[in-house]
């Protein structure tokens, strides 16, 4: 009966060929997260996490409640009630022009066809817009222009005072599923299978008027676009997520060099310069990867429907003379068959170009259901949200211990307990 326990996780690494998912043992030296804090409050799936400032973040989900948390202590700061339906989009919005200190707001859009602006310092509802004809599915703040955009069945541009500046005509019933800011006042909106690029143009009369112009319409996708990422500032190139039949690209992220794509259960790294996949982990998780993010330290974090969060590190592969990786290994991809570009990658890898691989350096197990999203807080740790209604803060235990000691001695000094009493 206890067989499943015996030597659990003691399998050697790199069993990608035999076992479907790469696993890591219980010994995870490089995994810094040795402390966790469960933040309870939500009553339904938590889908969104958004960072407000250095130490605060908000979580929102299907219960329509927005929680503000302190990422340092795990303290619940505010509980924002206002939406009657599930929250469909959330975006932070900070303004610093009025006074010295930054005012932090968050915008939340909900299935009740409203958008609410919340003040993060007071925890109060600042304003509520409820003139939408359809659910707003995405929100983007163009900090530079001090406007924000809401994407539903049409694209609306708002200023901070929540005046509707302009809007497009009705695009589609399905609505805009993703919005991304592009240079030159452009935004790309994913509408169904199409990608439409809009440009915001200030109106001539010099007032606060803006016009939205549709510039381009890209119709390369065969299926609905799920994720968008702005890749390069120099040339307004957009990575077009391919949607193969078997799997779908769930999420994209990028840095200067690479685009990281969560495709199905796997993670793929596409180098923009080389224009090919330089590393991949075909089955990074047991089920679909929902969110990935690149960390500054060459690490990559992914979370998945299987409830785990994994930390990867992109490493240069030692060019061993007898490379054990068979060519066919990459040909076996479902992805490869559908994607020509990727299909060529393995062949090119045989060349003398540097090879990379994603090494699993740690996994975080805590959620009992799909991990929807995570938020990397640098030193403060990592916040993950999941369908099990929980938000978990993962922390570096060493660091926390040190901080606690610091606080302890601060408090000792405060209480005057440090003076000798004898």
């Amino acid at each position, binding site marked *: 009966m*206890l067989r499943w326990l015996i030597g659990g*996780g003691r399998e050697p690494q790199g069993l990608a060929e035999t076992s479907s998912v790469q696993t890591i043992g219980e*010994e995870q030296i490089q995994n810094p997260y040795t402390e*966790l*804090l*469960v933040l309870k409050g939500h009553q339904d799936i938590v889908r969104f996490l958004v960072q407000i400032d250095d130490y605060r973040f908000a979580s929102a989900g299907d219960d329509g409640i927005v929680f503000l948390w302190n990422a340092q*202590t795990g303290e619940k700061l505010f509980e924002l009630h206002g939406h009657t339906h599930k929250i469909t989009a959330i975006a932070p919005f900070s303004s610093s022009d009025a006074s010295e200190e930054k005012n932090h707001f968050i915008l939340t859009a909900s299935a009740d066809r409203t958008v609410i602006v919340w003040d993060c310092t007071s925890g109060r509802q600042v304003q509520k817009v409820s003139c939408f004809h359809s659910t707003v599915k995405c929100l983007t703040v163009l900090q530079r222009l001090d406007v924000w955009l809401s994407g539903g069945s049409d694209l609306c541009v708002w200023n901070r005072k929540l005046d509707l500046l302009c809007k497009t005509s009705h695009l589609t019933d399905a609505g805009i599923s993703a919005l991304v800011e592009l240079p030159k006042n452009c935004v790309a909106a994913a509408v169904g299978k199409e990608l439409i690029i809009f440009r915001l143009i200030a109106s001539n009369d010099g007032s606060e008027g803006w016009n939205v112009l549709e510039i381009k319409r890209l119709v390369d996708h065969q299926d609905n676009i799920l994720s968008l990422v702005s890749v390069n500032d120099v040339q307004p190139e957009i990575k077009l997520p391919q949607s193969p039949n078997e799997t779908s690209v769930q999420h994209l992220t990028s840095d200067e060099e690479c685009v990281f794509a969560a495709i199905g259960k796997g993670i793929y790294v596409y180098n923009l310069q080389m224009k090919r996949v330089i590393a991949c982990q075909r089955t990074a998780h047991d089920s679909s990867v929902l969110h990935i993010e690149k960390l500054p330290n060459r690490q990559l974090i992914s979370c998945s429907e299987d409830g785990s969060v994994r930390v990867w590190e992109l490493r240069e592969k030692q060019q061993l003379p007898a490379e054990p990786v068979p060519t066919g290994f990459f040909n076996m991809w479902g992805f490869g068959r559908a994607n020509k570009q990727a299909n060529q990658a393995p062949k090119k890898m045989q060349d003398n170009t540097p090879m990379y691989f994603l090494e699993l350096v740690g996994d975080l*197990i*805590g959620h009992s259901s799909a991990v929807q999203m995570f938020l990397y807080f640098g030193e403060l740790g990592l916040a993950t949200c999941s369908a099990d209604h929980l938000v978990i803060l993962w922390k570096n235990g060493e660091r926390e211990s040190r901080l606690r*000691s610091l606080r302890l001695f601060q408090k000792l000094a405060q209480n005057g307990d440090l003076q000798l009493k004898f």
Partner: protein
Amino acid sequence: MISAPDVVAFTREEELEDELWSEPPLPEEYSVPLFPFASHGANPWAKVASSKFTRDFILISEFSEQVGPQPLLTIPDDAKVSGTFDLNYFSLRIMSVDYQASFVGHPPGSAYPKLNFVEDSKVVLGDSKEGAFAYVHHLTLYDLEARGFVRPFCMAYISADEHKIMQQFQELSAEFSKASECLKTGNRKAFANELEKKLKDLDYTRTVLHTETEIQKKANDKGYYTTQAIEKANELASVEKSIIEHQDLLKQIRSYPYRKLKESDFHPYEPECALDQANAGCDQDLTTSDLAEPGDTHLYAQAPSYTPKLIKAKSAKCFDKKLKTLEELCDIYFFTQTLDQLHQIERTFRGDVCYLLTDQISRALLKQQSLTNFLFEDVSFLDEKSPEKQYRGCQGLSQDAVDRKCSEESSPPKVVISLGSYRSSVECVPIKMEQEIEDSQEPKMPESVTFEHQENLDYLDADIKGSISSGESIEVLGTEKSASGLTKSDSQASLPVSPSPQVGRSKVGSRRTVSEDSIEVLSTCPSESLIPEDFKASYPSAINEEPYVDDEEGGLRFTPKLNPDNADEQEDVSKQENLVQVDSACCIGKESPNFLEPLPDLGQKPCDEDGVVRIPPQPYRQAEPGLRGSFPCHDGISGGLLPYELDSRYLTGNREVSKSSLDECSDSTSYISSAASTGSDRTPSPAHPACQASERHKKKAGQNALRFIRQYPFAHPAIYSLLSGRTLVVLGEEEAIVKKLVTALSIFVPNCGVYAKPVKHWVTSPLHVVDFQKWKLIGLQRTASPAGVNVLHALSRHSRYVSVLDADSKTLRCPLYKGTLVSRLADHRTQIKRGSTYYMHVQSILTQLCSKAFLFTFCHHLHLPISEREPEEAVVNRRMNFLRLQLGLANEDIKIVQYLAELLKLQYIQEPGRGVNPLLRFDYVPSFLYKI
């Protein structure tokens, strides 16, 4: 290990004792402690043999006006308890101890009968022939039908061990005062009800008589009164008088100030509601009844169901009627409350006095370890008892006593007079108003002049010495009331003020003085009954006014022994003592070899403000007779720890004692338990009521744990898991087995806060990460059903957070343990046999561990860089060095201390009012599977 009773018996051999004294062949820490009361020339069983009862019990007796002293009930209510002990005889004894002769009834010079709000008197007496010693608490209850409206009762705690009575006198008195107060409150309520009924009867009778007289008047046109008419008129007059008398009595009983008890376990009768009712009732009643004062509080409305009876002019003779039982005398709620309290007292003081004292010491010490005590101890009960009492009972008192003795050697023992009080009927005001008056008067009260009074225990002391050895069968060891009764007139003459028995109570300025119960030593006694000043004792009324006036102007008041000089002195003494200890502690701190030793004093040192622990946590030991000579005043004083407390040898010997090895530990603990079993009480049992249940639990847990470590070779890694904060899941099909294991292991689980232990005995649903955050020991059901598969799946998924003990297949999956600490804690070859002994052994090891964790946590430079530029690695190095070299921890033991340190930190830095944010710390370490 030699069983302890034998050891004790052996030491009783005369020659051996001599040898020991003349040239101690063994270092002190190896010598077997002598029987504590060897100096009295008694052997441990002598007293037990002479007593005819098997264990301590509480006896309630009454001095019945019909049959004289008679026992009413015993607690526990079991014939076996008292055995052949003659309760009737003993009742006679205790009731005949000069019970305060309170005069109630018609005082000369007063028109109406006065109720006397008498205080209880507390007496210790011994009957050496019977082998019985008793703490006797006298009290009076009101009964309308009784002579003088009072019925004398007494509650006695009877034990075969006089030292228990003497040393626990304070505690006994405090507890009994509470019980007595509860009983009396209930009695007052019942008495008031009775009076109301009586008044109704009288009123009804009067109406009847009145109408009869009227009819007679109308019928009578002859111009002269018939004898019948005159008789009726007389009768009417007497009824009227009786009404006024009873109204007055009711007023008196109502005006008894009801204090709000802090204890929530019983709710005193609140007069407010009665008053409200009264006022409501007054409006309608006033018209019908021609009461003397309109604002008066006569409750006809209170018992509407009561149908008044016609009262015959002459009541039945005293001996014809049946007197009310104790139960009838008291409101039923309060009666049961009192009984509960008495049962509690019985349980509290059950067992050997050594046990009680040790328990008190350890509790006091534990209380002082305010930063670490939550880890392995149930601190909830520490708060329950009044801390001062613990503190004083344990250490403060002795010093006080010494100081007092020294400073007041010359002053003759002053008799404390507890004046009963009475109020004149003119003064009758509702209580609420009185309160306001008091408040307004408060500022006018000048600061009271300190009135030293002698600890009456000194008195007791003298008495004891004389009387115990005397051949008389009954010795009154000390009684306050009797003394005060005798010197009543004397004191009135000599004292210009009313020496209200308010001793150091905070009610300064209130016109109601706080009545301590009559023995003034008991200034720490938590139960203070408020007695209104205007209820002056029923002294000859001529004197009544005078002290009253004095009091109004805020005369002299008694304050406790807290004049600054004394306090300073105490401070000095304690400081000196502290120095001794601190010195040794400091050396220890500096020198690493000693540092490795457990330091019981170091752990407590920084944490208490009001004084450093002066008593080493060691089993109760008897001081040498020579010492007794030098501190004669300590002899027999109720604070039992005195003799060795001031003994410098014990202070310096601290370390040696604390060096006690595992074996010695078990020795000394078993000594305690064996001592308990040879004591007067053959049902050794815990001292504290609050941990009564938990004590049994501890015993059981200890027994189970002992079985566990003997049975399972992998007990060590399992215990290590618990100590290092890794949740241990006990998996099994049978609930009973799993729960037993959980109980056994629960003694190793550190608490995360001051709340209950993070132990979940039985879970049937799949575990989540939240559970591991919350619980550190979980009993999990294994079933074959699909749900069971889910449970197992969840468990394997979270396998990195848990160690799994499979109770069915007897396997354990957990990280490796290579440390040394747990092997001391749980040696499967241990000779410890008893569960409670093993529990204590575990406790002592864990306490050592706590002190290590405390040191580690609160050493600044171990966690923070000394200078700004110091790299983090240096700090880490220093930290590890400290753990390894200074604390002598090896391998995984470090993790245990680190975990405990984290808990300490969390506890310390937590914001007040907000609980500790539970967090889950874990390591990525591989687990191994252990099999039997």
